[in-house]
């Protein structure tokens, strides 16, 4: 399945957000996720299915003002 993660194209075998994070190496617990512009809570990643063409955002703490 082809999805976009943080603006980069990826081909993944994962079927859920949680599996995609693991497959793509986002192993840190310090990330937040949104799928197609909608927030996906940490405890919902395992039952949030991916579809062809989905856009996944994986955000982390960064410096800010």
């Amino acid at each position, binding site marked *: 399945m082809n999805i976009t993660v943080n603006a980069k194209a990826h081909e993944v075998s994962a079927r859920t957000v949680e599996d995609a994070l693991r497959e793509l190496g986002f192993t*840190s617990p310090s990330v*937040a*996720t949104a799928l197609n512009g909608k927030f996906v809570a940490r405890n919902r990643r395992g039952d949030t299915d991916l579809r062809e063409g989905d856009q996944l955002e994986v*955000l*982390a*703490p*960064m*410096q800010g*003002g």
Partner: protein
Amino acid sequence: MKIYGHEITSRLLLGTAQYPSPAVLGAAIRESGSEIITVSLRRETADGTGAGFWDQLRDLGCRILPNTAGCHSVQEAVTTAHMARDLFDTPWIKLEVIGHCDTLQPDVFALVEAARTLADDGFQVFPYTTDDLVVGEKLLEAGCEVLMPWGAPIGSGQGLRNPDGLRAMRAHFPDVPLIVDAGIGRPSDATQAMELGMDAVLLNTAVAKAGDPTGMAKAMALAVEAGRAGFAADPMERRDMAVPSTPVLGLAALS
């Protein structure tokens, strides 16, 4: 000072961006005495850059105020706020909804809408706003318990462009915590804000881009403290004409 029920001792809030190094960032935060620091959310890399930064922040022991910097719509800001709450485990959110790319001034209409949505969902919102009194009233009605008027455009270091507007906010909202957010460039700007009766100052670039960020963090802390003490001591009224401070009575006739 109490914000959303939390007693805060330091009236200086500090941003974490643009420092020359993580070590300087840590030193500046410690020297500032700030208890509240702002952070953002950005795209993570597979090597875990954000996790390292988060580890450093936790070691500093400050309260985290995540922001929605860079958001230009209600949906972007609300989604970012939810992601921040999930990540930082705090209901606090510094709500920025930018309306203009050049000035980075807030879109106050979208700001009020986003604030209401988030407050209804249990967030404790710190809205980055202008010094407009009506907008302030709308934000309070939306559920905000603190207002953060700008002093000048973000990162400009221009100081307070409209002190009268801030003075009016203080008079109009006597019991609402007011935090000047953005535009502070020098310690004297921070002092001026505090002398006007603001409850606190939030700044970032003025410290991060100083030649000596750690030294400037200390200077800002002192400036905020001096301004607050000056406000509390009730400054004298300005006069148009000179008035001798040394008694005229008893002056010798020497000519």
